[in-house]
């Protein structure tokens, strides 16, 4: 049994909240720089440059990249040989978010009830998904997810006959409908398979684990390229003002599904794609 203490968890979560909100993800920065080489629209190029400038200012002045510092989502990978000490694991994750958001002047963007919309005042609760895995690993993949892009995400239960074409059409249509609302250029997660509740998790996980691409199947990579190409033919462009860079990347995640089903979920994330990993 390896021990992981709640005090460590609280501090690691708090630190990561501030880091992801203030420092542009280096992978995203590279993608923006690559996009600049290809973007032909002058307003599109202007915007891409301003996004890089925004990242510099944010880093220098310790300001959040975006004012919507999001609702926190944690994908927890818990080794079955880990023992949590010093308190309740979920409380520790929530406490980390509470401290991180307060300490770095991040915005509280969570309300207590969908109809009676009173702010919870500390950006909790965190949405936590847990997977128990072999060994003694302890990983938290953390995302600060903005409302504008989350609102344009979608799920559809397709029939097996609609197949890959149906999936491609649905993904492209979802991005097309979203237009300028989710702050393009986008980072898009696509979950295919599983069932009604798993497909969206696959889509979000695809973005969270985009830095760990080694084990990805060739067919999934090929689908990512096809989707990115189709999406960037839509013409939406940076901020929806016209251009070639509607999406910076598409990440696909697949899972077995029922003989009668073909679920597909599209999780849309903006250029301000804020996520990171804790490994204790």
């Amino acid at each position, binding site marked *: 049994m390896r021990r992981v203490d709640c005090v460590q968890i609280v501090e690691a979560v708090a630190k990561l909240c501030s880091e992801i909100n203030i420092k542009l993800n280096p992978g995203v920065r590279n993608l923006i720089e690559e996009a600049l080489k290809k973007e032909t629209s002058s307003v599109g190029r202007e915007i891409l440059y301003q996004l890089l400038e*925004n990242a510099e200012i944010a880093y220098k002045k310790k300001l959040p*990249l*975006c*004012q919507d510092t999001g609702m926190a989502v944690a994908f927890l990978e818990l080794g079955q040989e880990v023992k949590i000490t010093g308190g309740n694991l979920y409380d520790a994750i929530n406490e980390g978010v509470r401290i991180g958001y307060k300490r770095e002047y991040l*915005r509280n963007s969570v309300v207590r009830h969908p109809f009676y919309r009173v702010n919870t005042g500390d950006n909790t609760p965190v949405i936590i998904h847990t997977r128990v895995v072999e060994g003694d690993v302890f990983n938290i993949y953390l995302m600060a997810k903005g409302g504008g892009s989350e609102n344009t995400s979608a799920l559809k239960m397709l029939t097996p006959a609609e197949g890959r074409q149906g999936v491609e059409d649905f993904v492209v249509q979802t991005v097309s409908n979203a237009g300028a609302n989710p*702050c393009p250029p986008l980072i898009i997660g696509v979950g295919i398979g599983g069932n009604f509740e798993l497909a969206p998790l696959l889509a979000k996980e695809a973005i969270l684990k985009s830095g760990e691409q080694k084990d990805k199947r060739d067919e999934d990579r090929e689908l990512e390229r096809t989707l990115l190409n189709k999406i960037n033919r839509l013409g939406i462009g940076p901020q*929806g003002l*016209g251009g*070639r860079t509607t999406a910076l990347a598409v990440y696909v995640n697949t899972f077995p599904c029922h003989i009668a089903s073909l679920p597909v979920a599209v999780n849309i994330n*903006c250029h301000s794609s804020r996520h990171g990993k804790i490994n204790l």
Partner: protein
Amino acid sequence: MAKYSLSAPLTGEVVEKLKIGDRVLLSGIVYTARDAAHKRFIELIKAGEEFPVDLHGQIIYYVGPTPARPGCPTGAAGPTTSSRMDPYTPMLISSKGLKAMIGKGSRSLEVRKALQKYKAVYFAAIGGAGALISCRIKKAEVVAYRDLGPEAVYKLTVEKLPVIVVNDCHGGDLYEEGRKKYVIS
């Protein structure tokens, strides 16, 4: 594409000059308001009660900034999705004389019609450029609904806030036009 430097109050003549794609640097006063404040505004209009701010010729920015660090007027302050304000906007334009809005994303047909009829304009600020925009805000004071926290109505003093004309008062829509220009079918 033309470039302008403008400040509120805006007049119909100034608004008429603006065309989609024009780049505008705004200085002076801009008011903030989001969903909750808009809802209260409309309730006041319907009840015929006194308004907390005079919106005549003014600009509303759809924003809910992050808390300010000590010594700064505001935190990150990029635009939020404008369509959530669509149900309220035509009434603010027609009965309160609102002349411009700053946000992100497309507007409803009703809003676009109101822009044409009453000579008003819709600007886009860069969504997600919260830190960059924050540097252009020199002063921020709450003028109404402090209880709404980040959704309170602030009077901002801005300097060279960069925005782009997306819907002009001639019926133009840059989201539609821009996309048409770059779509590959």
